[in-house]
């Protein structure tokens, strides 16, 4: 019953979105609050209806309704329950509905959070959001209907692809979708600002918060995907520069560029046009990402059938969005112009702009490499392939440039960096960085990119550590707090800056994790129980794995052959590990479960590649012969640690609250809406806007020392 109601809910959600969009635009145009209220209620209603529709799909999975085409293709009776639930996003049809659901959620959230704020923008925001939702519902209903029926009811479904039967299936897609869909909200605000002409400070503030939230989920989603690939695909790798992976990177890159250039707009009032364009571009990139994945246009390992209808629909949508954004920006160009200029090449504004250019350069390289085969085929007719070698060759140098900028940016002076400023802030970190490189060289590291990554990484970490140290110490001195408390307060009072620094630390750690791939070791051996294999890691540890034997187990929908390995490191016993070969029933497919043993510095990675043809014939050791691949992957754990640090840094930066600097001047009483938590020394009063000959007045207001 619920599936049927769900289908019905999906059908009526479409006219509701269209109604809401009309109401929103008319209400905004004519200033009619009742129409706008109707539009906002439509947003809530659509979210509720999409939730009902999604519940309907999930119910169909949970009750084994194989008369639904979608259920019969992605589920089976013996599938675990949580995979049945995740069936909602397992395939094209359901995942489009899932996208719409996420979009509905964020739209409802945006409308609700702004029910008393930004009222001059909200009609347009609601209108844009409803139109985007309408597009996705439309595609779902007319091209890939999730509730399509078979003319009969199969006894059992075909089951879920075994490579998806992993707990990451419940985590990675939802996180990724939250990230992608959330980018629609700042886009809607951007369009609303352009339409209404309110191109002021408020737009930046609300946009920045949303982009940070989306970025948080998208980053997490991508890192989860990497972890999943590493755990499940059994190649010891975590990123393959596959077109679909690249597609998810594009909006991430553009959003990162925006997060940086928006800082310039806030403090120097520049780059308004650029930022507006970046927000629109981020949204278009999310649509492009889902277009690439779903249309099947780019041939990749993921051989889904070409779906021209989906391709055309998304291409059309992207074209329309691009055109509207461009026209609106051009229309408002005069109001967006700023009168300031870049003063010098060696300044923070330049460093930020350079960051943007380099990031977008990387994005362009990824886009080009992904689309190149398609373009070449279209033009010359010959098919070519562009793979990981290209992406690595292009992106590693760019990544190193970005790494360096992360250290230079925070510290270089605004406006004009003098030689003195440069020397004071960069001499020691550069020396330390070069020193690190030299030390590693002496220790035997010869791989150029790895050396550079570590050298530049240490350079950045040093600079950030000094920043934290200076700030904490100054605050401790002034406030009389101990260092720990001073540190906490320091961060609390300027979350954006310090949260951002923490994110940079996470990125450096992650890059070092990537660099570890230069030192991977691998060995392959066929063994019977009792035999062992040894491998020495780049750090000098020797691991010895002894094959103890093979055991069998049966789970709900698969057979398992589990190999038990006893592990020793440098002669010290460490316990056991297992690696498995699984044979799924529906659909029938073998799979390998790797064994991973992580320490802080490296991963021991074991793959059971092949079993003897006669496995299971008896307990004779000969029947238990198996081929193992054993790898040691140095520094891979740092990728996950880096991801965690990035997440923490982002949360700190996003966290609401935090003090507004107190304004001291004037007898104006009510300044409503201001939250003044703490007020401490170092807050500049308005009156301190004086200058030069004021130096005697300064100390009274702003005590010496870096108390931010």
């Amino acid at each position, binding site marked *: 019953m619920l599936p049927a109601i769900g289908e019905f809910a999906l059908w009526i959600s479409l006219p509701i979105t269209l*109604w809401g969009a009309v109401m929103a635009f008319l209400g905004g145009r004519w200033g009619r609050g009742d129409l706008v209220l109707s539009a906002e*209620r439509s947003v809530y209603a659509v979210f509720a209806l999409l939730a009902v529709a999604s519940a309907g799909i999930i119910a169909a999975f949970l009750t084994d309704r194989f008369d639904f085409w979608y259920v019969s293709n992605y589920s089976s009776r013996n599938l675990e329950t949580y995979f049945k639930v995740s069936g909602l996003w397992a395939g094209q049809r359901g995942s489009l509905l899932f996208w719409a659901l996420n979009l509905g959620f964020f739209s409802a959230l945006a409308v609700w959070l702004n029910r008393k704020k930004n009222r001059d923008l909200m009609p347009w925001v609601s209108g844009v959001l409803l139109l985007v939702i309408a597009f996705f519902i439309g595609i779902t209903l007319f091209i890939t209907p999730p509730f399509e029926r078979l003319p009969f009811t199969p006894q059992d479904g075909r089951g879920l692809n075994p490579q998806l039967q992993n707990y990451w299936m419940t985590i990675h897609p939802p996180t990724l979708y939250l990230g992608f869909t959330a980018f629609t909200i700042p886009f809607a605000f951007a369009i609303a600002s352009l339409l209404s002409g309110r191109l*002021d400070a408020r737009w930046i503030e609300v946009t920045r918060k949303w982009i940070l939230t989306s970025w948080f989920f998208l980053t997490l989603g991508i890192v989860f995907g990497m972890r999943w690939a590493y755990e499940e695909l059994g190649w010891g790798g975590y990123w393959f520069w596959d077109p679909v992976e690249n597609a998810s990177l594009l909006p991430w890159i553009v959003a990162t560029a925006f997060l940086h250039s928006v800082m310039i707009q*806030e403090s120097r009032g520049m780059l308004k046009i650029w930022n507006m364009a970046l927000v629109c571009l981020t949204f278009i990139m999310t649509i492009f990402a889902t277009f690439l994945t779903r249309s099947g246009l780019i041939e990749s390992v993921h051989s889904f059938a070409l779906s021209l209808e989906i391709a055309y629909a998304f291409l059309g949508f992207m074209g329309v969005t691009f055109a509207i954004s461009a026209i609106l920006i051009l229309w408002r160009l005069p109001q967006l112009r700023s009168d300031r200029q870049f003063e010098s090449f060696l300044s923070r504004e330049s460093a930020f702009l350079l960051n943007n250019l380099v990031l977008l350069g990387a994005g362009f390289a990824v886009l080009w490499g992904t689309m190149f085969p398609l373009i070449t085929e279209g033009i010359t007719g010959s098919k070519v392939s562009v793979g990981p070698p290209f992406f690595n060759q292009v992106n590693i140098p760019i990544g190193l440039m970005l790494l360096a900028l992360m250290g230079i940016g925070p510290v270089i002076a*605004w406006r004009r960096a003098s030689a003195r400023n440069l020397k004071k802030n960069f001499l020691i970190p550069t020396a330390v960085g070069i020193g690190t490189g030299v030390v590693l060289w002496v220790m035997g590291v010869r791989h150029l990119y790895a050396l550079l990554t570590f050298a530049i990484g240490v350079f950045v970490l040093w600079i950030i550590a000094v920043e934290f140290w200076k700030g904490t110490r100054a605050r401790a001195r002034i406030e009389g707090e101990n260092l720990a408390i001073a540190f906490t307060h320091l961060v609390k009072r300027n979350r954006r800056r310090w949260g951002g620094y923490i994110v940079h630390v996470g990125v450096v750690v992650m890059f070092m994790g990537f660099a570890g791939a230069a030192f991977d070791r691998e060995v392959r051996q066929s063994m019977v129980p009792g035999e062992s294999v040894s491998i020495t890691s780049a750090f000098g540890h020797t691991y010895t794995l002894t094959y103890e034997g093979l055991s069998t187990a049966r789970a709900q929908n698969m057979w398992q052959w589990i190999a038990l390995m006893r592990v020793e490191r440098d002669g010290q016993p460490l316990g056991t590990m297992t690696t498995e070969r699984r044979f799924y029933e529906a659909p029938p497919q073998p799979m390998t479960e790797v064994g991973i043993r992580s320490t802080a510095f490296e991963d021991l990675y074991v793959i059971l590649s092949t079993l003897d043809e006669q496995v299971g014939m008896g307990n004779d050791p000969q029947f238990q012969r198996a081929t193992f691949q054993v790898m040691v992957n140095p520094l891979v754990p740092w990728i996950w640690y880096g991801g965690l640090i990035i997440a923490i840094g982002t949360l700190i930066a996003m966290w609401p609250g935090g003090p507004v600097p107190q304004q001291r001047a*004037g007898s104006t009483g009510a300044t409503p809406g*201001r939250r003044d938590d703490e007020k401490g020394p170092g807050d500049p009063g308005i009156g*301190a*806007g004086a200058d030069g000959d004021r130096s005697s007045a300064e100390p009274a207001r702003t005590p010496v020392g870096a108390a931010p």
Partner: protein
Amino acid sequence: MTFILGIVLATLVVFFILHPLVSGRSAPMDRSEEELTEAQHRKRIALFALRDVEYDYHAGKLDEDDYRKMKREIASEALEALAEEEQEWAARQGREAAEAEKRAATNGRVATIAGDSAVEDEIRALRSSLKEGLICRECGHPNPVGSRFCSACGSALAASPPAAPSGSPAGGSS
């Protein structure tokens, strides 16, 4: 049964979204009083920027000339925003006072007037101080009549020009 539930769902939804048109209930279209105005936002951003500049200077990332220059720029922006904010506030108080008077006249609610008269007094005092007082030359802060030093930045007011003698409220332009 399912059919009935479907109809009920559809009816509820349609009712929910059409209700405002029928009843005339309206979503707020104007800025609420709690929300920051554009001027307050600009002031807020300017204050943040000022704080960052202070920090950068004290951390040695900004040399003295640039520091003063930037500080002056941002401070003047902040003052503009602040002055605008004061205008808005005064205007709003004026509006509220006028409305309260109207209400009092029609309903005879003395209590309201009493509460508002305190506010009214403050407004009058502010206006007169602005009218007859002095604008600080250094920082642009309006000071009440009779002040010798600016209450915001501390500089001497003696040499400052008098405020505009016209009857306009808040002559505060820096």
